[in-house]
């Protein structure tokens, strides 16, 4: 049995967790505002192709990620119009958004198969990267990994300590009360939805520009659904989303490494372990009294 290098493994986990972390973080904000958007997969794949196409044509991965966020947000705007202005059913609109995003992305992706995107350079952190072990695990990644981690902290702080976060949570917990207090429920929700779309787009582009680097139709293959499930199991808390993403990404990568190393655990168990372990840990953690935002999935109209 070959040995697994823990340094490389931990470094790989940071990368594997980033797409679902970004998407789940966006969805967390959306759901805390009381909106259930099941279109994460569609927004991710749209972001993946928008980012890929722009990065290839402009030669700049940074522009690619900007375009991915814009693409994801643009698609989510459609969802916002349907659910916040036309008051359409959120579940149905979200599912439709996923189907639409998958179709749209394969249309946009015509002609982008087999092309190499411009490489995203690692962030140069100077002497930090040279620290043994920690340098490779923590300080030798692409900027998106740090952006995702920064977003976790930002979302956590915003929701917990700021007035804006309080308003967002109020809208999500009880939109009638928030409305009575004079807060613009629909405006807050539309902004949350756009943020969620942008995050999902970034997550998708992370797959197409960094993790796989190439464009293939349907390449997110279910990552959006994992992100959705993660938000629920993480009890709508940013810190736990990070934990869940690391667990899921970590065990996924670990089980592949264990197989490659020839460990004598039946492969079936290894294959199901990412799902099992992530759910188990997060369910145990949510044994406290955390619950879904009160107005989650309910339509709001000022006249009601």
């Amino acid at each position, binding site marked *: 049995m070959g040995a697994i290098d823990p340094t490389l493994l931990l470094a790989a986990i940071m990368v594997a967790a980033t797409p679902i972390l970004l998407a789940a973080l966006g969805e967390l904000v959306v759901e805390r505002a009381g909106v259930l958007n099941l279109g994460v997969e569609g927004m991710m794949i749209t972001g993946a192709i928008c980012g890929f196409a722009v990065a290839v044509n402009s030669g700049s991965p940074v522009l690619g990620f900007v375009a991915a966020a814009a693409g994801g947000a643009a698609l989510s705007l459609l969802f916002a119009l349907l659910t916040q202005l036309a008051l359409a059913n959120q579940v149905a609109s979200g599912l439709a958004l996923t189907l639409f995003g998958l179709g749209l992305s394969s249309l946009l992706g015509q002609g982008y198969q087999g092309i190499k995107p411009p490489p995203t350079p690692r962030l140069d952190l100077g002497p930090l990267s040279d620290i043994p072990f920690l340098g490779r695990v923590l300080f030798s990644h692409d900027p998106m990994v740090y952006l995702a981690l920064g977003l976790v902290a930002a979302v956590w702080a915003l929701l917990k300590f700021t007035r804006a976060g309080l308003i967002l949570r109020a809208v999500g917990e009880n939109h009638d009360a928030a409305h009575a207090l004079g807060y613009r429920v629909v405006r807050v929700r539309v902004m949350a939805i756009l943020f969620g779309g942008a995050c999902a787009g970034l997550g998708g582009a992370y797959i197409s520009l960094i993790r796989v680097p*190439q464009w*293939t139709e349907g390449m997110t*293959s279910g990552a959006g659904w994992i992100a959705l499930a993660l938000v629920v199991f993480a009890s709508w808390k940013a810190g736990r989303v990070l934990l869940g993403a690391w667990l899921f990404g970590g065990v996924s990568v670990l089980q*592949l490494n264990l197989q490659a190393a*020839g460990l004598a655990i039946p492969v079936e168990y290894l294959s199901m372990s990412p799902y099992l372990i992530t759910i188990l840990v997060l369910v145990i953690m949510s044994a406290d009294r955390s619950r879904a935002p009160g107005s989650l999935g309910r339509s709001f109209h000022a006249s009601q």
Partner: protein
Amino acid sequence: MTLTRLFTTAALALGLASTAMAQDKTKVGFIYVGPIGDGGWTYEHDKGRLAVEAEFGDAVETVYQESVPEGADAERAITQMALQGADLIFTTSFGFMEPTLAVAEKFPNVKFEHATGYKTAPNVSTYSARFYEGRAVQGHIAGKMTKSNIIGYIASYPIPEVIRGINSAYIHAKKANPDVEFKIIWAYTWFDPAKEADAAQALIEQGADVILQHTDSTAPQAAAEKAGNVVTFGQASDMAEYAPFPRVSSIIDDWAPYYIARTRAVIDGTWETTETWDGIGPGMVAIGEITDAVPADVKAEALAMKDAMARGEYHPFTGPLNKQDGSVWLTEGEVADDGTLLGMDFYVEGLTGQIPN
């Protein structure tokens, strides 16, 4: 449930109506496991579909549904296609075997063709390609190209088709290089670029400098390219965009002649249940260009092996060969029979690890 019955009747009526309308045209349906843009398995099947359209023009109409999951939903997708009035339906993944048979029973007048399976019915044929012939060529090149003597293999599901490929590649890699060792990862998916890339990455970190894949996307090629010094092979499709390196050769599936022949049989009314299993000889399996990254003598040996298989002079599973547990499988000069190959559920001697089941 009255409502359900109403819908079923409506759907049936709709299906019958479209059958009646489509009588002058032969409708050929395709059920794909991945997207047609996967650059691999499904991409080649769709090329076959386009070849059918080009061959028959207005006499034939083709329909397809992509990314159909293997399992319960497949039955719904196939049923829907039959209801739409398809006369001939190709279901192009191993996991569609039971759904295909179940739907075929309900639509005795529709012809079904299931790829890579082993169960037939009066209106269900099977067809597959002897990919293991291509794997033999791959194994030989892989054995010669590896410097670390570790070859990584990204396998999909533990089905005979995949196990045959592993065995064939291993036997010929071992012949070319007695020190060679295989590391196998079961991905439990046909198509998941991120997971395939992670699997390739894990194998590279474990020292593999040649990666063979039995999954459908080009993601492992991209991972190898990123690593810089890792050799890969195109799977199911040429994947020439990664040539000349890391992709040094490929196994290409060419379904077009078969699809055209079977469509013609339906049009002529001569369609019968058959079990087709063709290899390099009839052209169902092709070896993609071996690039200059491969030394000239290795390339010549590989091509000689390919030609010998095409002429029927060499069989990749020729004894003496032992099973993994050391028991004798084939004695000196003995050639494996198709029955054993179709149901292959064991590794040959020298492979480590266990086949999940």
